[in-house]
């Protein structure tokens, strides 16, 4: 019995890895991701702005002094070129969204009151972007806890940085990077009081203490997104946008650590489907996303059950023989 079991085990261990094929593009060296390769038609135009907003110092001619003056560009006003030319809106000119009066310096005062477009103004009811379901997202957002802060300045832009936002989960080949990216969106306020205080009167934030109940917190925050626990899953959109009041946040371990878990309907929604297409071994035997309890393997379960029943059967038979022999 044990011998066969061991043989099975050896087979599993020595055959599996060699049968696995396919490789992921390496993120660091993927040429398609190299921003220098994207040639914006507005590159020159944008340099008018980047020459000041592209780094943390800028210089201008002080007409009163009649000479060049060097000054600090506050970090919040700095737009990293590389990230801009990787973002969704990389093909834009700065002045597509901003008034062309910004070419003047100092910028005219009334530009401060400039009304900015919203996502829905450009993306609403547009066939080209139908797969994103902007209208549904807009609706979900209006039901989220953050919407009540619209009046003091909350908007889609607060989570989707106008200059760096880039879709991640939809094209993700590296879940950990996506999780980091998505969580940083939330942590930008919830772990950075300087941003948070613009919208709330709360005197302090302590994200770590509030999640003390979660064991291996650090490892969890690297493996799941905030929105997994804080939003209501909506099947018609890829990324749920309805952030619920904190009382409704997921606290039960079983939500994720069980088969058909929450993660399957959110984080791994795309991944698991594609993995299954990726071949038997990768997709079915080894579910790439490891979560204790959730990555139960049907085949191993069945083999396990059969071995267990066989052993129990042999024992029962042995016992009955012993009883029969004793009687005689």
């Amino acid at each position: 019995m044990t011998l066969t079991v061991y043989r099975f085990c050896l087979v599993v261990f020595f055959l599996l890895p060699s049968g696995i094929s396919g490789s992921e593009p390496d993120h660091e060296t993927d040429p398609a991701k190299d921003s220098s390769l994207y040639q914006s038609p507005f590159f020159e135009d944008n340099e008018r702005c980047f020459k000041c907003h592209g780094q943390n110092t800028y210089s201008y001619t002080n007409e009163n002094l009649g000479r060049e003056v060097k000054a600090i560009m506050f970090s919040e006003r700095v737009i990293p070129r590389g990230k801009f030319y990787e973002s969704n809106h990389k093909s834009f000119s700065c002045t597509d969204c901003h008034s062309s009066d910004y070419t003047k310096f100092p910028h005219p005062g009334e530009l401060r009151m400039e009304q900015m477009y919203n996502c829905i103004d450009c993306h609403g009811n547009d066939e080209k972007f139908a797969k994103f379901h902007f209208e549904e997202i807009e609706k979900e957002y209006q039901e989220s806890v953050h919407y009540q802060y619209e009046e003091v300045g909350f908007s889609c832009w607060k989570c989707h940085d106008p200059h760096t936002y880039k879709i991640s989960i939809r094209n993700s080949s590296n879940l950990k990077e996506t999780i980091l990216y998505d969580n940083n969106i939330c942590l930008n306020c919830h772990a950075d009081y300087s941003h948070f205080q613009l919208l709330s009167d709360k005197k302090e934030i302590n994200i770590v203490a509030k999640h003390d109940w979660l064991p291996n917190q650090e490892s969890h925050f690297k493996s799941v997104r905030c929105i997994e626990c804080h939003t209501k899953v909506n099947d018609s959109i890829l990324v749920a946008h309805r952030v619920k009041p904190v009382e409704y946040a997921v606290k039960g371990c079983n939500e994720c650590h069980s088969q058909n878990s929450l993660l399957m309907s959110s984080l791994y929604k795309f991944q698991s489907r594609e993995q299954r297409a990726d071949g038997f071994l990768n997709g079915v035997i080894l579910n790439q996303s490891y979560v204790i309890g959730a990555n139960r393997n049907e085949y191993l379960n069945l083999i396990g059950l059969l071995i267990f029943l066989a052993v129990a059967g042999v024992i029962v038979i042995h016992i009955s023989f012993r009883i029969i022999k004793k009687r005689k």
Partner: protein
Amino acid sequence: MSYIYLYPKWIRLWHLLNGLLFIILIITGLSMQYTNKEDNIFLVGFARAVKWHNIAAILLTINYIVFVTGNVITKNFRFYKIERKNFLSDLISQFLYYSRGMFRGEKHPFPVTENRKFNPLQKFTYFMAMYVAMPLLIISGIGLMFPEITVNRFFDVSGLILTDLLHVIMGFLLSVFMLIHIYTCTLGSTPGSLFRSMLSGYHESDEH
């Protein structure tokens, strides 16, 4: 009936603790593997299962070190030495005894003596369980407890998945081992005699 002192106190203590911890590990292990989303908890709740599995695992690891050290510094290890000569035929004759001979009232092919605590089949399974499966179980368990030390990718498959698979399979095999082990321990001179031995230290034998 004759008595041979075969199970020194440290073995008995080790074994008692080992058995208890194993039972805790199996119950909590199954609870983690088969949690259910709809809160009708399988055996113990997930959070509690994680906690107790970790505690029992750490104790088991310490206990395992005691076992190995004990076998190195005492002479107990000699009982586990598998004889290469006639290895297969010895296994088979022991197997035939369990499956046929014992019902025909044949004599035990490898009676227990002062120098032979285990028959060849016991030697083999105990050796595999204690020196192959247990180390793999413990090492993979440590890998799961500290995921940061686990190899990230192995032939393009997440190292954690392989570690987890190894852990679950070893846990399962050792559980099956335990089931067979407990049953074969009823095959002494009386069904209860080997269990009494493991408490008193004396092997009871009626074959002399």
